[in-house]
């Protein structure tokens, strides 16, 4: 009993120190890129501009004709997609023959508070797609956007449909009227302008606090108890460390996009209603006519499945379907079941809509 308490208190203390470290980093500066853990899959940066660094991962074996661009969220570091051998979406997809490109967003500084959806989508994402087109020698790409990155991808696909061959939104919070996550009740009452007027950008520590508040019992206690309970399971402690590293890798969110996200999407649900304006253009989801595979986690406690499901009804594609997998929000990218069952399905769907290069 004494050992149990000692183990638990030690695990909890380590976690508290990590959280404080994360908080300190959030208060002082953006999460430095060089603190990312070593990547599992080798990559090369093929483009850097604006607030974007574009990484290229070479396909293994006979390559598919259409390259795949992964659009990651703006609020955490993207190494969760290439976490460890056997637990990397990037390695999984390159292993299936896809040339993978990943958006490695550069954290905004105080001179980037003006950056909104227009700058990120019509600026950085347009440049990223051009870089992929040039690098791979193609006219169209396959697009996969995860969570907030999925929102950016949806807006991109609606504004520039001619460049997208296949589209895979992954756990995207689209219809906020159905986002039945208790904490969102608080977000709906917040005035984002007051936050950005005070700090310029939305500080990383506020984003971290928001995520921790989604399930405080888990973050303060249960995950450490889980570590104790599964200490004998091979690789669990290593995975826990890496995962904690990612959980503390929050980066600030540019002021303008923070306002647009909170006010236009979370509070007024303009994207789902077809009334969101980006760069002077209304985002009409009916303009997305390419094949769409909408992937979501059945037990997602960050983006409620009901908030993602309406996407297939709103896009203009004929070839579209929902793929609901029995995991949570992070489980879609890091669980072993997703690696073994979900991503091969996603790869198979992409291959069905593509062909092998000769």
């Amino acid at each position: 009993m004494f050992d149990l308490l000692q183990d638990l208190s030690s695990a909890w203390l380590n976690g508290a120190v990590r959280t404080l470290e994360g908080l300190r980093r959030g208060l002082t500066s953006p999460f430095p890129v060089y603190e990312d853990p070593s990547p599992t899959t080798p990559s090369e940066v093929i483009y850097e501009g604006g607030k974007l660094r574009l990484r290229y991962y070479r396909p293994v074996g006979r390559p598919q004709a259409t390259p795949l661009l992964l659009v990651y969220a703006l609020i955490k570091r993207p190494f969760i997609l290439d976490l460890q051998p056997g637990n990397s979406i990037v390695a999984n997809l390159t292993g299936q023959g896809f040339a993978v490109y990943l958006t490695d967003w550069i954290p905004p500084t105080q001179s980037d508070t003006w950056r909104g959806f227009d700058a990120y989508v019509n600026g950085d994402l347009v440049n990223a797609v051009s870089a992929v087109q040039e690098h791979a020698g193609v006219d169209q790409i396959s697009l996969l956007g995860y969570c907030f990155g999925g929102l950016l991808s949806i807006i991109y696909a609606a504004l520039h449909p001619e460049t997208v061959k296949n589209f895979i939104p992954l756990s995207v919070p689209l219809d906020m009227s159905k986002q039945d996550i208790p904490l969102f009740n608080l977000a709906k009452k917040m005035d984002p302008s007051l936050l950005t007027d005070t700090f310029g950008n939305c500080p990383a520590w506020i984003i971290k606090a928001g995520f921790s508040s989604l399930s405080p019992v888990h973050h303060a206690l249960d995950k450490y108890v889980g570590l104790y309970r599964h200490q004998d399971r091979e690789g669990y402690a290593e995975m826990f460390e890496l995962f904690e590293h990612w959980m503390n890798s929050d980066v600030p969110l540019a002021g303008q996009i923070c306002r647009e996200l909170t006010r236009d999407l979370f509070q007024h649900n303009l994207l789902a209603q077809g009334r969101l304006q980006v760069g002077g253009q209304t985002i009409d989801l009916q303009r997305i006519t390419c094949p769409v595979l909408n992937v979501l986690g059945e037990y997602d406690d960050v983006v409620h499945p009901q908030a993602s499901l309406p996407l297939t009804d709103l896009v203009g594609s004929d070839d579209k379907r929902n793929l609901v997998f029995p995991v949570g929000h992070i489980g879609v990218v890091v669980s072993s079941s997703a690696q073994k069952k979900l991503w091969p399905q996603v790869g198979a769907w992409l291959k069905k809509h593509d062909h092998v290069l000769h």
Partner: protein
Amino acid sequence: MAEKQMTQTIEDLTTVYKTLFLDLPLAGAKWGMGIGAEKETTETAWKAYDASVRLATSAIDTLYRSPLFGEAVSRTLTEALRWQRVGNAVSGTVLTGLWRALGVPTAAEVQGLSDQVRTLETRLAQKKDVQTILEQLRTLQVRLNAPSQAQYRNGHLEERAVA
């Protein structure tokens, strides 16, 4: 949905009550008397723990959904942010002048410089990589162009007849 949650909460409450006040003391007593196994006691304890975590999570979710709590948090945050702005304005006005007079840079200036240094550092690292590759290429080129040792005889380059 709400009905399902309520059923789950009642189930968890019953589990916590039953395991804490009946199952756990019984299993502990049996283990103490040597007629029960440690595993049984541990499993009962974990069962109580899991149900307690679910209960606590459900209670917090109910609190989040409460309009009163939402209003209270929103007002507290708003007030905190207003005071933070006042603090920023005061320190910006008073301290910036003071720092200038003392010749000390402001936090924003240091942050700006630090950002620039980081950007330069990244660019330099990339250039260094390119430089290393270029140097390796040059070495390779020199090696390829240089005559091999076999072509030297008595320290002189042997002239080969061109057919």
